[in-house]
């Protein structure tokens, strides 16, 4: 009798265990997750595949989608509450410093260590390393980069790098090859207005503030520069910094009319409307160039890697996913994050027009057939530089200072060396105030 009951009990336990193993989502079935996403093409694509997640897992997802600056403001308030409303958030890359520093994001180690939650087929090594380092990991070198003691606080999702888009038809007409180096890039940028009157060489962001800073930093890394050295001393005003400022000025001077007021949308629009022969910015704009409802250059756009200066170094930016420390349903949120960033989820989102976060997605034949530029983007990602701009809590004011000073270089003829000397001096004061030199003798 005892044996019979023992056997039956064991069988039931095995059946329950088997059922649990077969469906790791079962304990969370019926849960409703509230996620906070930005209004961004990648997240529009992600929202399109959420029904598939609910169907597979039984976990419902409610999306609070906001314009990204508004999203950041909302998160700033939400994350300071004892009990938050969001289970999963998308955060813009420079929020990593603020959220991790304030202990507002979950360290993901405990979730990946939990066999009931971590999918063994997830394949972390397939995630694009530049993105992971830039968006996901903190606590290693310089605090914001990976290192022996670093940890993951987020996973890239909707991340971006920079590529060069150029007009194949114009280049072919004048026998020009896509530029591979900065010298070639600058040469072509100023040759185009002579060859094609009325057309600018390259459309670039340059508006005062963040946009001008972004544009300058885009050239700084490949030209061999950095904002800081390893001891946090500002080196933005060295030879590479001046070269980057001069490169930006050349590009804007030879670019389409009114370029000094351009944000990314205006620069992309100038390229789409045939007012510029080149555009170098995030890969996120490519879909718009191929959209006949908004572009006059469909089928005429070629893509090349971000040209090389003294080294290769394309930008890393965009968004990542993280679980707030005050999230009500952290484990279910992890399952959604894992699903969206898995090979299957990443491909599904990419096929809807999102930006892949995995090398394997870029190699997918179906994706390359649908979006032929994907192969170039995958190649560019191998050189994505996670340290092209610092991700530190005081970056906001330094970034604004670089941006307004660069705007003065572009519009008021301020000498680049003098301008960058001023930025370096003010940056040092900001860093000193924030305690970055406390350990220096």
């Amino acid at each position, binding site marked *: 009798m005892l044996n019979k009951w023992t056997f039956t009990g064991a069988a039931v336990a095995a059946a329950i265990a088997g059922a649990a193993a077969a469906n790791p989502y079962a304990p969370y079935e019926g849960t409703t997750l509230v996620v906070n996403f930005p209004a961004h093409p990648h997240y529009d694509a992600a929202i399109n595949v959420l029904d598939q997640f609910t169907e597979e897992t039984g976990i419902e997802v409610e999306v609070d989608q906001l314009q990204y600056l508004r999203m950041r403001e909302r998160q*700033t308030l939400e994350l300071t509450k004892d009990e938050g409303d969001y289970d999963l958030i998308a955060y813009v890359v420079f929020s990593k410093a603020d959220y991790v520093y304030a202990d507002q994001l979950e360290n993901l180690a405990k979730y990946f260590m939990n066999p009931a939650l971590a999918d063994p087929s997830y394949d972390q090594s397939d995630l694009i390393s530049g993105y992971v380092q830039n968006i996901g990991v903190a606590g290693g070198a310089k605090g914001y980069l990976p290192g022996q003691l670093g940890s993951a606080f987020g996973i890239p999702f909707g991340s971006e790098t920079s590529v060069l888009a150029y007009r194949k038809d114009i280049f072919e007409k004048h026998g020009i090859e896509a530029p591979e180096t900065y010298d070639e890039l600058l040469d072509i940028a100023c040759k185009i207005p002579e060859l094609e009157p009325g057309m600018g060489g390259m459309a670039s962001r340059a508006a*005062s503030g963040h946009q001008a800073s972004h544009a300058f930093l885009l050239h700084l890394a490949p030209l061999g520069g950095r904002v800081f050295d390893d001891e946090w001393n500002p080196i933005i005003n060295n030879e590479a910094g001046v070269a980057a400022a001069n490169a930006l000025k050349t590009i804007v001077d030879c670019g389409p009319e*009114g370029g*000094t007021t351009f944000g990314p949308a205006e620069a992309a629009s100038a390229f789409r409307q045939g007012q510029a022969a080149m555009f170098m910015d995030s890969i996120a704009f490519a879909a718009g160039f191929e959209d006949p409802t908004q572009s006059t250059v469909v089928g005429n756009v070629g893509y090349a890697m971000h040209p090389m200066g003294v080294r290769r170094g394309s930008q890393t930016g965009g968004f990542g996913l993280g679980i707030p420390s005050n999230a009500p349903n952290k484990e279910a949120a992890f399952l959604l994050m894992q699903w969206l960033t898995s090979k299957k989820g990443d491909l599904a989102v990419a096929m809807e027009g999102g930006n892949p976060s995995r090398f394997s997605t870029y190699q997918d034949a179906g994706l390359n057939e649908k979006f032929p530029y994907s192969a170039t983007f995958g190649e560019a990602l191998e050189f994505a530089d996670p340290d092209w701009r610092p991700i530190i809590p005081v970056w906001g004011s330094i970034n604004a200072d670089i941006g307004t000073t660069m705007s003065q270089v572009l*519009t008021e003829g301020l000498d680049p060396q003098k301008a960058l000397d001023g930025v370096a001096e003010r940056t040092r004061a900001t860093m000193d105030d924030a305690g970055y030199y406390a350990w220096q003798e």
Partner: protein
Amino acid sequence: MLANANRMTPYLFLAPAALIMIVALLYPIGYMIYASFLDWNPSQRIGEADWIGLRNYTELLGDAAFRESFWVTLKFASIVVSIEMVLGVGLALLLDRELRGMTLLRTVFILPMMIAPIVVGLVWRYMYHPTVGTFNRFLDSIGLPSAPWLSDGDWAFASIVIADIWQWTPFIFILSLAALQSLPRSAMEAARIDGATGWQLIWHIKLPLMLPVLIVTALLRIIDAFKVLEVILVLTNGGPGLSTEILALRISRTASEFRELGYAAAMSNLLLILLLVLTIAMFAYTKLQEVRAARLRQAAED
């Protein structure tokens, strides 16, 4: 005893409402003053922020970007309010008559101020566009070179001034018109009988009588011009360089981009003090003018 109680009764009834009003009005201001003494970033609750005394204020004194913003704001407010007052009052004097279609015309004049500032910014940004914008296309059509509306510091400043004048002149117009229409007709008739010309009527009767209203109108516009944000945010975002970065934009950036809430609160308080001093001065002047206007009215009626 009973008489005393009766005298207190109205105050007792009013007390709860008055208390709520005072708390609702003063609490946010008190919060802002308290915040200005803190080293506070948005990731902290206010209770977790460090008390740093007057440091935010002393740093402001040496902050070149703040000084620049303050100067830009002062320049902007002075120019737009002066031009808007001249245009608004001028239009009111011109349209203060009963002609056919005047009601429609007045309605059309006040349309700009009914439009949301963000929309105004977007519309003007498009009109200032270097290649497809209305203004450069017009210049092009008459053979003139394009203007760098938003891409040159001086032009960008002029551009935000033009947009503000377009939107807010109607405000001056509508208040001036109301003031004009409330003037005692007897004073005007008496002056006419005495042989006053149209210009003399305006200079010696209408404008002096309107002055108290005009001062309050100007004050409201000055306060508003010091706080303008959305249109400039959309049009220039403070650039090129810092050429159009008015104080409200600097404060907003300090709070949201630089994440220095305490420092932003200190800036806001300085702006508040400045506007408060200006308001007190203008109200004192208004009081003086009201007394003079009353004397004038009395003299005219006599």
